[in-house]
């Protein structure tokens, strides 16, 4: 094994361990955004696709690497945007005020007809 490969293996193993450590602390509520965010990060394969375009020396290689760039760019841009869209909704809001006083009496329900198709507020 070459020196380069050994260095790369070291980096790989450490990165895997860091990944376990960082990720195992994420609460379940954030699992979907996390999956999406991690999904965006592996779009980093874009730089690999760019690199193989740069070394393309024949039409087939050029086509393969072009498709790779399209795929990876879609992964990166779409991945980050959709994750951001999800997380945008996690704005912290203050907890609801304490419940107001309970209903005073058990009034007989007025037999109201079904509120058909009430539009949303």
């Amino acid at each position, binding site marked *: 094994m*070459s020196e380069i*490969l050994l260095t790369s293996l070291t980096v790989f193993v450490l*990165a*895997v361990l860091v*990944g*376990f450590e*960082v990720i195992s602390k994420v*609460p*379940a*509520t954030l699992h*979907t*955004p*996390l*999956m*999406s*965010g*991690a*999904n*965006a*990060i*592996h779009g*980093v*394969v*874009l*730089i*690999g696709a*760019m*690199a*193989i*375009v740069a070394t*393309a020396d024949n039409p087939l290689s*050029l086509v393969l690497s072009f*498709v*790779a760039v*399209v795929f990876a*760019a*879609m*992964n*990166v*841009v*779409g*991945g980050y*945007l*959709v994750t951001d869209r*999800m*997380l945008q909704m*996690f704005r*912290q*809001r203050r907890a609801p005020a304490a*419940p107001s006083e*309970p*209903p005073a009496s058990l009034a007989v329900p*007025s037999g109201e007809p*079904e*509120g*058909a*198709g*009430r539009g*949303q*507020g």
Partner: protein
Amino acid sequence: MDPQALATIERLGYVLAGALFVVGLHRMNHPATARSGNQVSAVGMTVAVLVTTVAIATGTLASSVGVVGLVILAGAVIGGGLGWWLARSVQMTAMPQLVSLFNAVGGGAAALVAVDDFVKLSRVGQAPVDTTVFVGLGVVIGSITFSGSLIASGKLQGLVPSRPLVIPGGRFVTILAGLVVLGGFAYLVWQAWLGVGATSWTYVALASIVVAALVFGVTMVLPIGGADMPVVISLLNSFTGTAAAMAGFVIDNQGLIIAGALVGAAGGILTRLMAQAMNRSLANIVLGGFGTGDTVGAGAETGAEGTVRQVGPDDVAVMLAYARSVIIVPGYGLAVAQAQHQVHELAELLESRGVDVKYAIHPVAGRMPGHMNVLLAEANVPYPQLYEMERINPEFPRTDVALVVGANDVTNPAARSNPKSPIYGMPILDVDAAQNVVVIKRSMRPGYAGIDNELYSNPKTGMLFGDAKEALASLIAAVKAV
């Protein structure tokens, strides 16, 4: 600048990008910092891409900058534009399949990078053994991810039937494809070991590996039922990360290795957590234990016994309005009906009457872990009201009304009591422990796992049939009238 210095800058850029990815993921630990975490990670991505662009433009990698620049730019604009449009236009309910689609193209890109580099090396002679191994791994994992994720996405979108598809001889095809992959892989490594140089057989072997891995991805995911799709997507997400790392080894790019390894680990952890939430082993899921013909039949039998009690919105409104505590159990039916805003409106209305309202979130409610949290967050439901399964289950016996909106399998008592049920052992929300249960549901059709739910024939349970959105709207009106 001299090439040496540029190469150093490139490497340092990748280190910076890798660090930003780690920090970004770390910030995604908490809802408050999650969004900025994703942005930090996006900055890391930008750094990685910029550094690579500079390296290519200054010719450390290329001689014909014009063509290269054009191809990259065109690819980036087309792919990026497509990704941008999809991410902007997708409904939040359809988001899991979009993530799966992005995962597919990511895996495809990793496979292409590995294939292309191998072809280049073979044209000038012979790829060394270690490179060949990484190429093989990258191609196999990337191809399986590509086709597997497309099928998973199609299943969630309804383009491919979500029921487990058992093709006659399907398992045989899977095994055959696996053997072809192993055989082709072994041939390539053996050839590299001998160092005899690439022949046309080299390309035949490589092409066979790609085709067989693609077939393997399809036949692996097809027999898996829709209920298990979250776990499968997570697993494939992990695969893509690993494939990217392998591609990084092939082209000696540490940016790829770091990011790929991180995602591989992330997906691995997530997959395990998800499988645990469903009390299923990964092997069980991947081998398609769920919903093969006999289990579907076994589930269907229980449907005949017991009658269901149908209730109207007015009855339910009274029950809710005078309850002390209500737990809302949202499920996928709520998501497809886009009824998260109505649920929130009803909850606020009840709270204004002094009812204690909580949401019970099953880990796999919706289509992915945490999917329901996203949908409810979209509707501005305050975080503290969302309760995870372990925290809410002890509350059910003290609860007056459990309102189940479009959830099914995650409330099925058969998971506790019926060892024959395919979901036996899956942790569920103990909805049946509540004093009263109201289920809003379109019809008596079974849920995603394809089995009937005995909760519906429980004497405590009232069924309010209808589309979740309309049913909730009429409930809101009825509660206001109480």
